[in-house]
């Protein structure tokens, strides 16, 4: 370790595994989701249907990664409040301290790091709120996606029991009303939200690289090794 620097732990092993699982699922969900919305390959290739399940496999992958997302979301929602490492909820509440930190980090971004008046050794309010936006988008995809999914369970039965479609209707029927009243609206918004998530990912990757370059604290290493380095002012 370079003298004058100290190592700070920023992501636990679980958080890092979760990050990469979610990242891979995100790519898979976008690739398969675009196919489901508009099948863009493979129509006229190969012989007539013999063990050929292109759409079925795309949907299978889409639903599988969706379920992984759902489970991950439930765990992350729990950690917001009960994490023993850092509770994100403490950085989201609009306390004066958080608001000041949020503004200072934002100023740092728009002044291209000419002004840096906050402690960058722990998760800051700006980044935590940014992650909250992602988790809300993900929750929306979860509810709207499950609503679209339950249309195929109209018999009221599923392989894991009749409670499942019942729960899905109870938990997701509101998405039809809030998007405009038809099943098509839920599809539109499920699809549009994907673009908001891609925009979110673009800025997320850019911002972490930007921090690494301008702060010189090794931020990009957090998601691999779990820690970064900050100047030791002692």
């Amino acid at each position, binding site marked *: 370790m*370079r003298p*004058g620097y100290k190592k700070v732990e920023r992501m636990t092993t679980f958080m890092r595994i979760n990050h990469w699982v979610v990242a891979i699922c995100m790519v898979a969900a976008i690739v398969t989701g*675009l196919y489901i*919305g*508009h*099948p863009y390959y*493979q*129509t*006229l290739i190969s012989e*007539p*249907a013999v063990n*050929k*399940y*292109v*759409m*079925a496999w*795309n949907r299978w992958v889409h639903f599988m990664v969706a379920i992984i997302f759902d489970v991950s979301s439930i765990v992350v929602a729990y950690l917001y409040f009960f994490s023993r490492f850092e509770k994100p909820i403490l950085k989201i509440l609009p306390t004066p301290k958080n608001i000041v930190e949020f503004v200072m980090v934002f100023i740092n*971004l728009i002044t*291209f*790091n*000419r002004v*840096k008046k906050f402690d960058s050794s722990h998760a800051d309010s700006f980044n935590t709120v940014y992650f909250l936006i992602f988790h809300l988008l993900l929750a929306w995809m979860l509810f709207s996606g499950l609503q679209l999914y339950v*249309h*195929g369970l*109209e*018999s*009221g039965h599923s392989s894991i029991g*009749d409670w499942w*479609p*019942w729960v899905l*209707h109870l938990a997701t*029927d*509101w998405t*039809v*009303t*809030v998007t*405009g*009243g*038809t*099943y*098509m*609206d839920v*599809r*539109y918004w499920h*699809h*549009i939200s994907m*673009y*908001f998530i*891609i*925009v979110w990912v*673009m*800025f997320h990757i*850019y911002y972490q690289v*930007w921090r690494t*370059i*301008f*702060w*010189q*604290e090794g931020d990009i290493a957090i998601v691999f090794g779990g820690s970064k380095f900050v*100047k030791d002012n002692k």
Partner: protein
Amino acid sequence: MDRRDALMKLFSAKGVKVNTNRGEAYYNRLKEMMQKRLDELSNTPAVTKTDINKVLDAEGLSRRDFMKWASAITAMLMLPASFTPLVAKAAELMNRVPVIWIELQDCAGNSEAILRSDSPTIDELILETINLEFNETLMAAAGHQAEEHLDEAMKRFEGKYLCVVEGSVPIGAGKEWCTIGARGETFEKHLLRVSSKSAAVVAVGTCATFGGVPAAAPNPTGAVGVQDIVKGKPIINIPACPANPANITGTILHYVLTGQIPELDHLNRPKFAFGYRIHDNCERRAHFDAGEFVEEWGDEGAENNWCLYKMGCKGPMTFNNCSIVRYNSGTNWPIGAGHGCIGCSEPQFWDKYATERPMADSHFKAPTGGVEKTVDEFGLGLLSAAGIGIAIHAALSATAGKKEEEK
């Protein structure tokens, strides 16, 4: 809809689950009730002289054909096979149920679908035998004479008749241009007056149920469905453009059998007809799963009856039984004829379903207003804007930014 209604709707939407096996006790009770109801009906005098057996004879259909039809309808109504004789009896008693059929903003397409088919099915013949007290398209009377007849029928069968409505109700600016009859009654007043004394209201076709084509953007007449106007009456919606005669007959038969309306979904559609998606019973479904799609009209995929999803078929989000019951005596249906489903039994279908394109390519009003875009065009615009923003920030950071220096 006020806020309270909207909230209630938000949290009380029912699923479309159809319970097809409710146990012996339930069906025995139901059978008794139906038996009683049919006995009561058969003791009342027939209001029309038309007898289903005579009609069938005239068309050269045997008693056996009729019983075959009765067992099919029993299955469609999701009743056990032992109910077939009751259904047959109910069909024979159809001439005891008075029906008043009114038309509003419509093309009479639903009437046409039922009455003008080339070789009538028993569904259509049954509707010939119902006691149709009033129907603008069919009756000979006109003007004051027709109005008088309507008043008389409403008085005579008060609280007993089914009010069948075809067409949407204009309630926007200029609604007074849409009037009916010699008294110049507006459609809204006409509907409210006729429905007020009925036993139940049956909205037939998508215009009457959800506004349909007249309600398509920009909806110049402010058209709405019957359920938006009529309150405090049981309402059954039988959407589709046109509504399938089998579903209309099924609903009326259910009413004759039980004196009640059938189990409805959250859009007031009978679950026996609208409980499942076109997609799930589609003859082309295997090609959907295989990823074999028609890419343009008349291509190799079209010749091989492949899936029409990429031509804009909305079967996966449309609840109706066309894929089983079909149209015109079960001859064919849109997807069978090589055209995708346009979702005509769903609300706002003309604006949101009948785009003839897959969802991702359908034009919709972008959140910025006015301009129509596809979801993907809007999304790519969003991505470009974000990319430009990031590029500008990166460039300014590189030129004007300050890297932390090591001490």
